[in-house]
């Protein structure tokens, strides 16, 4: 199953073409079906700066393009953050929200909705509390006088538990006819609010996070050996670990901010990529980006086309991802063990 060293380039090309193909499908497929040829024409006209009007053009450029771009960013971001954290914490079962960023951001958003409904204030609250929660986790882990991965994970669990309880409290006091459904739907995750202004808001943090993680990708191998061996190989793991945590948090917080909580992607995409490309983070991180983006586009196409009303994407990532993962797991006999 694992791609051989000499076929790596071929595998990259295949994955990138698959990404381009799903991206294109996402532009013409939907409740309002536009023929692929017309989408092609609209795209070319748009890029050449030709004035366009009509339903199809505004759907492609105004609705589907920003939404698909956001799919790519969020899918790639969540997957690479998950892969980095799994390497960092030497545990293939952690995901990007292990340090509490998701529950922190979810609390911020719920609180924002409770106070003023869904608007920019809510988005800002989600971002602030997401980053605050990881900051709290990091400070708490330092209380023991060391910054080991174990104390980090434990602190993350503590902070997550507190924020989860606070979310329940907010749901309990929220108006059950108006605010409560809004909070509940937001927590399930959705790309329905995707827009260019959203893209502008989170594009930079996600892209910066991805770029830094990609640059550090080989170093994550060393960190995955544990602190003692990293020191013995001449690498100080403490600073690099902090940089990776900050970048993965930035990505996750930005994703949660615009789309709500989308679970499962950060956990399962890196696993699938290990089965394809092996465990070397040098290849794993870029692969996770591409596969995460492909996965997110496909799942979002299903979310907006399967039924008349849109299905929250957090539900679908698990419903689509889990069986897919189960099949792969069986085929590779546990794969990477």
């Amino acid at each position, binding site marked *: 199953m694992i791609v051989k060293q000499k076929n790596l380039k071929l595998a990259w090309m295949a994955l990138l073409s698959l990404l381009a193909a799903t991206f294109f499908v996402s532009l013409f497929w939907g409740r309002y079906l536009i023929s692929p040829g017309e989408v092609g024409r609209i795209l070319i006209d748009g890029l050449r700066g030709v004035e366009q009007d009509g339903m199809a053009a505004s759907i492609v450029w105004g609705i589907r393009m920003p939404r698909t771009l956001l799919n790519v960013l969020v899918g790639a971001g969540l997957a690479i953050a998950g892969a980095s954290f799994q*390497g960092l914490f*030497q*545990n*293939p079962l952690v995901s990007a929200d292990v340090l509490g960023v998701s529950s922190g951001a979810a609390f911020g958003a719920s609180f924002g909705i409770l106070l003023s409904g869904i608007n920019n204030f809510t988005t800002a609250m989600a971002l602030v509390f997401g980053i605050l929660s990881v900051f709290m986790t990091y400070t708490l882990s330092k209380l023991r006088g060391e910054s080991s991965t174990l104390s980090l994970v434990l602190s993350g669990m503590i902070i997550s538990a507190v924020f989860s309880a606070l979310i329940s409290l907010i749901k309990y006091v929220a108006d059950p006819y108006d605010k409560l459904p809004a909070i509940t739907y937001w927590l399930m995750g959705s790309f329905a609010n995707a827009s260019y202004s959203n893209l502008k808001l989170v594009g930079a943090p996600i892209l910066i996070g991805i770029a830094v993680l990609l*640059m*550090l*990708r*080989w*170093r994550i*191998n*060393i960190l*995955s*050996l*544990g602190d*003692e*061996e*990293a*020191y*013995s*190989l*001449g*690498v*100080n793991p403490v600073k*690099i670990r902090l940089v990776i945590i900050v970048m993965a948090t930035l990505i996750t917080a930005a994703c949660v901010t615009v789309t709500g909580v989308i679970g499962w992607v950060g956990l399962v995409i890196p696993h699938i990529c290990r089965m394809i490309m*092996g*465990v*070397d983070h*040098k290849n794993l991180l870029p692969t996770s980006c591409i596969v995460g983006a492909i996965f997110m586009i496909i799942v979002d196409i299903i979310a907006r086309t399967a039924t008349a009303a849109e299905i929250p994407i957090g539900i679908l990532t698990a419903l689509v991802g889990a069986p897919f993962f189960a099949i792969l797991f069986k085929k590779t006999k546990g794969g*990477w*063990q």
Partner: protein
Amino acid sequence: MILEVKNGYFGYAKDNTILKDISFTLGEKEIMTILGQNGIGKTTILKCVTGILKWQQGQTLIDGKPIGPSRESREQVNIGYVPQAHSLSFPYTVREVVTMGRARHIGLFSVPSKNDRKMVEQAIDEVGIGYMRDKLCTQLSGGQLQLVFIARALAGEPKALILDEPESHLDFRNQFMILNLIKKLVRERGISCIINTHYPEHALRISDTTLLLGRDSYLFGRTGEIITEEKVRDYFGIDVRILPVPYINKEIKAFVVLDNLDSRQDVCSCSK
């Protein structure tokens, strides 16, 4: 290079110093062995010398120059450390693990270059594990994994190699093979070597100097003068004979355990 330790002190807890006033010198192309009971601080000495742990007092000197107290200056000292064979958190291939030995030569934001890959292949061939370079480390036996870790240390082009019980968990054929490999590396690469071991006959066989570590004292000197019947009795509490076995035109020393001197003492006094 010449590696010196001067008056090193270390303890994991504040009131419990396990290493007191340790001093020794490792000359160029020399092999030094460290012997002592379980839990007495053998691995701790190695970790202090490599800079994984920090001497509380005293210092390590390289060619007469002390290594500074900061992490950074300790990182620059190129000493290869070979830990005891242990399982890895992810199933990396042998080649990937050996490549990690290049870490100190690869920039923070870089990936291994062509030259790095060349050094890795060289280290793999030198240790003789070329046939399993694409295997996953999770599929290897303890002895094979030990060789992989040695290759990883060599890939970093170290000036000295420090091995923590490299021959434990191995059958005696593989033990012999590891010892021969170490001798070959010292000869061909001109590096110095410190080895922790539980086998006095291995020390007698390959090392120039020996550090015999006890609970409150230690001995350091030429191996032949340190590993004697009286000293082993003092430090391990067992009665032994060291017998010469003639082989071709040299003598190999055999080490025979006769009896436990102190029957009240447990066979394994593992507690710290």
